[in-house]
């Protein structure tokens, strides 16, 4: 259903004045999408995530409207670029006060003003040929954020990429495309923030490509607060050069069905890569995280910590693959996935995977699934804390490990508040 409507949408779209290379890329991508179709649970990578509800839904084009206020990160002069239903919104953006050498623009603006900047980068990492979601996005993306930092540029304020979904009577689709280019020794914090008006149904299909040149340091966050009826799918592709450091912190609250596909390519020596995540799921939410950490070169470190708290009939999937290629000696890779089940009916699939082709490496992974420990609950009780409160405290403590690893205090506080509200509402429900 939706497959046809996507192809139909592509054929009928108003042909924008785009460079030939992009047109060719889009044509190839729609052909890929037609060939691939939506994945089915027969495919190993989609074994535990059924996208049938999405594949059978017809999505209209998005209208344009947003009424709710979104709070800034406190105590910080944030640079913000905002999109409403996928289209750049000058009204909600503030892009003043950028230092020289820093570009933050909507992708459409770059395409019309200076498309050469995108060539050889856009579509370079995300492979439409093997992933239907990337293919649909490549064919149909309308807009997104473009961030480029020249060599040595340091941005202290977090860059807030705000994607708002609102006011759709009919289910609609938003194909967002972001491109982040961190030049040599540049430094920045980027927060991708997805937020949807309560109760509306839509499909966010985002692709973000990140290039971290030599010595670049990028802290990337994703706060996912889509509406409870939304489908949220994102592919994050990261290419890291020697001496770069990339950290990712993904926190998921929203969407009924969602998935993060994260791939970090450690393509230079002495690279550091951190991928952390926290998913707080309840009711019928299904969220899937697939990570692929690809160690190509020697002396690199990667660290992954994914934690999930599942209440009611929530279902989480975590599949983390670490690849250590023959050249990647002295790799140090750690991966951990921990899940807390708060109630009957919740379900977890955890698939930590190591593929190692070099001998002088240190790789570990671990996964745990369980409920709160009775010993810890008792210890808290002997200190005067009631059992109910002890439960909340320990649940909070469980999640806190991911928050503690966030380098930006303002973002951390913001997320912590959301988390506390979530815990409270789950405790009351």
């Amino acid at each position, binding site marked *: 259903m939706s497959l046809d409507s996507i192809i139909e949408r592509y054929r009928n779209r108003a042909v924008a004045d785009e460079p030939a290379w992009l047109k060719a890329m889009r044509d190839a991508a729609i052909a890929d999408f037609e060939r691939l179709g939506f994945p089915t649970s027969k495919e190993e990578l989609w074994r535990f995530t059924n996208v049938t509800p999405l594949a059978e839904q017809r999505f209209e084009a998005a209208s344009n409207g947003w009424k709710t206020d979104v709070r800034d990160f406190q105590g910080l002069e944030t640079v913000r670029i905002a999109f409403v239903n996928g289209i750049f919104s000058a009204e909600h953006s503030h892009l003043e006060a950028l230092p020289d050498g820093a570009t933050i623009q909507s992708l459409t603006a770059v395409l019309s003003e200076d498309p050469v900047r995108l060539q050889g980068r856009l579509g370079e990492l995300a492979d439409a040929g093997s992933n239907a979601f990337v293919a649909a996005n490549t064919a149909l993306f309308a807009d997104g954020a473009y961030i480029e930092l020249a060599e040595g540029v340091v941005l202290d304020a977090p860059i807030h990429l705000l994607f708002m979904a609102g006011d759709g009577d009919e289910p609609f689709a938003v194909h967002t495309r972001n491109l982040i280019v961190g030049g040599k020794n540049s430094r920045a914090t980027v927060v991708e923030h997805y937020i949807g008006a309560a109760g509306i149904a839509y499909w966010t299909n985002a692709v973000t490509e990140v290039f971290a040149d030599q010595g670049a340091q990028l802290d990337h966050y994703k706060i996912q607060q889509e509406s409870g009826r939304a489908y949220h799918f994102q592919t994050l592709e990261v290419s890291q050069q020697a001496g770069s450091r990339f950290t990712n912190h993904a926190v998921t609250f929203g969407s009924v069905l969602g998935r993060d596909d994260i791939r970090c390519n450690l393509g230079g020596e002495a690279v550091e890569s951190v991928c952390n995540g926290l998913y707080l799921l309840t009711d019928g939410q299904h969220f899937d995280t697939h990570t692929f950490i690809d160690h190509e070169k020697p002396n690199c470190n990667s660290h992954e910590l994914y934690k999930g708290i599942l209440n009611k009939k929530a279902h989480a999937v975590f599949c983390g693959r670490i690849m250590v290629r023959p050249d990647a000696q002295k790799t140090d890779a750690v991966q951990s996935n921990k899940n807390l089940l708060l109630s009957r009916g919740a379900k977890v699939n955890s698939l930590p995977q190591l593929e190692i082709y070099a001998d002088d490496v240190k790789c570990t992974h671990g996964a745990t699934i369980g409920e709160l420990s009775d010993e810890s609950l008792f210890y*808290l009780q002997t*200190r*005067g*804390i*009631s*059992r109910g409160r002890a439960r909340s*405290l320990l649940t*909070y403590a469980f999640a806190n490990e991911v928050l503690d690893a966030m380098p930006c205090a303002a973002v951390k506080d913001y997320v912590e508040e959301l988390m506390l509200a979530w815990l409270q509402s789950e405790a009351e429900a």
Partner: protein
Amino acid sequence: MALLEIKDLHAGVEGIPILKGINLTIDPGEVHAVMGPNGSGKSTLSNVLAGHEAYKVTRGEILFGGKDLQELAAHERACAGLFLAFQYPVEIPGISNMYFLKAAVNAVREYRGEEPLDAMDFIELVEAKKSVMKIRDELLARAVNSGFSGGEKKRNEIFQMAMLEPTLGILDETDSGLDIDALKIVADGVNALRSPDRGFLVITHYQRLLDYIIPDHVHVMVHGRIVKSGGKELALELEDEGYASWNGEEGL
């Protein structure tokens, strides 16, 4: 009125009887030591007193300040003034020691009908108490017992006791795994808390701790019963003779 009165206490875990008729009375201001070999039921006694759900009382009575202890949930016992310093304190990654203590102190205050302490008052209280136990600020900022050394954990337990100001402090093998310096710090902390209206139950395998925390009464526990009671000299006697004779007397 006695602080703690244990009458003919029988208790066990998973249907296996461990305590087989304990009688013990602790008056305010007294320090009682319970000594015994491994497996005699010492830790069971502390867990029963603190209200661990896995331990079931099958017979007998425990009165705490005249109230039936068994009617209180574990946290209510803590709020009522019963404190257990654990032999193996659990680690709670993700909650800082400070945050945890504040939650505990205010839970106890709320139970007593007192106003909760705000952040400033709380910090003042911490400052006042921490020096005795030689607790560094860094330890307060770290997650509860996470990555603490054995000595740090035990000091942290006594520090928590100082913060919560219980009327009965139970020390479950607090000396195990401590070197002599750490042992002295812990003992100093406990001695500083001794007062006419506070009692202590010191559970230990060795006499060593009792060189520093001088007990008023010593009880020998073997196979779930108190087989002999006496003054502090009883501990020294045990040190010389060991528990072998008691095991024999019980006939195993």
